[in-house]
């Protein structure tokens, strides 16, 4: 493995991501309001790694006096942005990166400076408590089990990729598996404790790295407006053409970045090598973003970052790194 990030930098990056917040301005759907579009908006600085339905109880309380139908329940609430129902199983930071972050916050710097994105902040969302869009969204339940299940299901997928089995999450105690969900965005120490049970130790590489890549498509191209890429992604790749993994990578020796700790025939899978393998047209170079940038937590990812380290220090609460491809210019 390349010069391993020490535990301290991993922790500090994780801490920064946990503290990342997004200002939201949430309005009640005018058709559900006694005063149409005159309802005061609800403003909140909300954790990027949190999930929107966690806001529903306070939003329902806040808007209850304005609701035409006061009998609606908090868990009947759903969100939309520019009339697109938002999938509640994605963290809010990912939703923002997908739908609203017109330009990545920083170009190449990799910082969390959001000055360029000021124009789109606060992010203006609409909450609805009627007319659940059954065709688009899985319905929630009052006890929050549906959300919990969706989260744990995602954790389980990440676990399966990292270890090649789903035994880790299966062996987690009931308290810990619900504790993991409850800790997301509110309790970093608990979250670390439980997720460390699932994560392979740092000296034991992942089998595959849980990364999904999202490519937003122009809105007029038909049904799904996102193309999602996922392929078995090994943390290291062979240098030779012969055994270049599932991805069909063909790397030349001159491109290889040798590391003393690695066996001579492998190198780290980087953000650049993975993107080049999955999306060669958008990422013709493994080192430099030419046509598009990879964005994670609102920041541009360095192409040279090893994917396993990216996931270890900056995954979302479910163990996945969700990278959004943002076109340059």
């Amino acid at each position, binding site marked *: 493995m390349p010069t391993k990030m020490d535990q301290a930098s991993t922790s500090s990056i994780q801490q920064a991501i946990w503290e990342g917040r997004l200002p939201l301005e949430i309005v009640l759907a005018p058709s559900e309001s006694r005063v149409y579009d005159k309802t005061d908006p609800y403003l909140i600085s909300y954790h990027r790694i949190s999930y929107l339905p966690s806001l529903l109880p306070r939003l329902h309380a806040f808007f209850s006096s304005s609701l035409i139908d006061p009998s609606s329940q908090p868990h009947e609430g759903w969100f939309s942005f520019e009339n697109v129902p938002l999938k509640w199983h994605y963290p809010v930071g990912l939703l923002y990166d997908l739908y609203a972050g017109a330009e990545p916050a920083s170009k190449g710097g990799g910082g969390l400076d959001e000055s360029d994105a000021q124009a789109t902040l606060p992010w203006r969302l609409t909450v609805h408590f009627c007319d659940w869009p059954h065709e688009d969204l899985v319905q929630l339940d009052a006890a929050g089990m*549906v959300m919990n299940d969706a989260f744990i299901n995602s954790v389980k997928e990440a676990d399966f990729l990292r270890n090649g089995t789903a035994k880790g999450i299966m062996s987690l105690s009931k308290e810990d598996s619900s504790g993991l969900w409850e800790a997301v965005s509110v309790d970093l120490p608990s979250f670390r404790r439980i997720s460390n049970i699932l994560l392979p130790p740092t000296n034991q590489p992942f089998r595959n790295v849980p990364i999904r890549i999202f490519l937003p498509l122009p809105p007029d191209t038909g049904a799904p407006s*996102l193309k999602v890429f996922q392929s078995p992604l090994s943390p290291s790749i062979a240098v030779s053409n012969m055994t270049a993994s599932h991805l069909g990578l063909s790397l030349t020796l001159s491109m290889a970045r040798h590391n003393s700790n690695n066996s001579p025939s492998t190198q780290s899978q980087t953000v650049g090598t993975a993107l080049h393998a999955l999306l060669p047209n958008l990422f013709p170079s493994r080192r430099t973003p030419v046509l598009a940038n990879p964005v994670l937590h609102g920041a541009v990812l360095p192409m040279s970052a090893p994917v396993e380290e990216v996931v270890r220090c900056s995954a979302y609460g479910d163990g996945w790194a969700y990278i959004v491809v943002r076109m340059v210019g």
Partner: protein
Amino acid sequence: MLFDFPFLTVEEFHSACQDLASRLRACGSLKDSSWSAVRLIDQTNGLIFRITKSIGNVDASKDETAPEEDSGFLETEQNQAEEDPEALIRSEQRSTDWQVEYEIVYSPTFQVPVLYFALKAGAFHHKPVDIEMVYQHLVPQQYHQELKNVGVMGGISFNVGCMFFENTELDVRSLFQYNPVSGSPMFFVHPCNTADAMRHVIVSKDISPETYLLIWLSVIGNFIKLHLPHELFVDDTPVSLKFQGPSLGDAS
């Protein structure tokens, strides 16, 4: 000969779907089957093998509200299906019939096929379809007790370890989730132990991707009343579900 048995690569999945679609096309109409349509849909996010099955008018006996209201939505869908030149098989349906849409997609995480399904109520049925209806209409009686024992709402879990194999638990869970290819909310049979199950069911990896898909379908489909039409096995080119011995010169 599969590349990474008991897993299926995405290319193998595609070829399996294509081959199964061709085979069904060759069968012509499936008279004795409840399958009413089969379609291979190439979506932005992958291939969907969709099987539509009619389960009749399950409302008929206990009717509550069946006034002559608009049935527009469903009929429109059916008309489309009937005129759809890509539909591989079609059959007549009444708009009051309930339908099950089974969608087979590929899981890049588990590297196996995954079965999603949705129960679509017939016209004049106004209550939303819930998990109870799925139990009632799609899960064979013998598995009811097992799934009721599972506390998680919306979760169906079958422990069928004893049915097929001694040491592997096939935790066939089905949850209400987003179909990753179409983005629609559907139930699905959790694929996390599918590969282990396939390893136990199939002795040799010297099988075609299509045979893998058919065996997988007969194992998983069993839990939610998706049965292979027997036309598949009586035409001129039967699928060999017999296990072949390893071929000579097997490199791996």
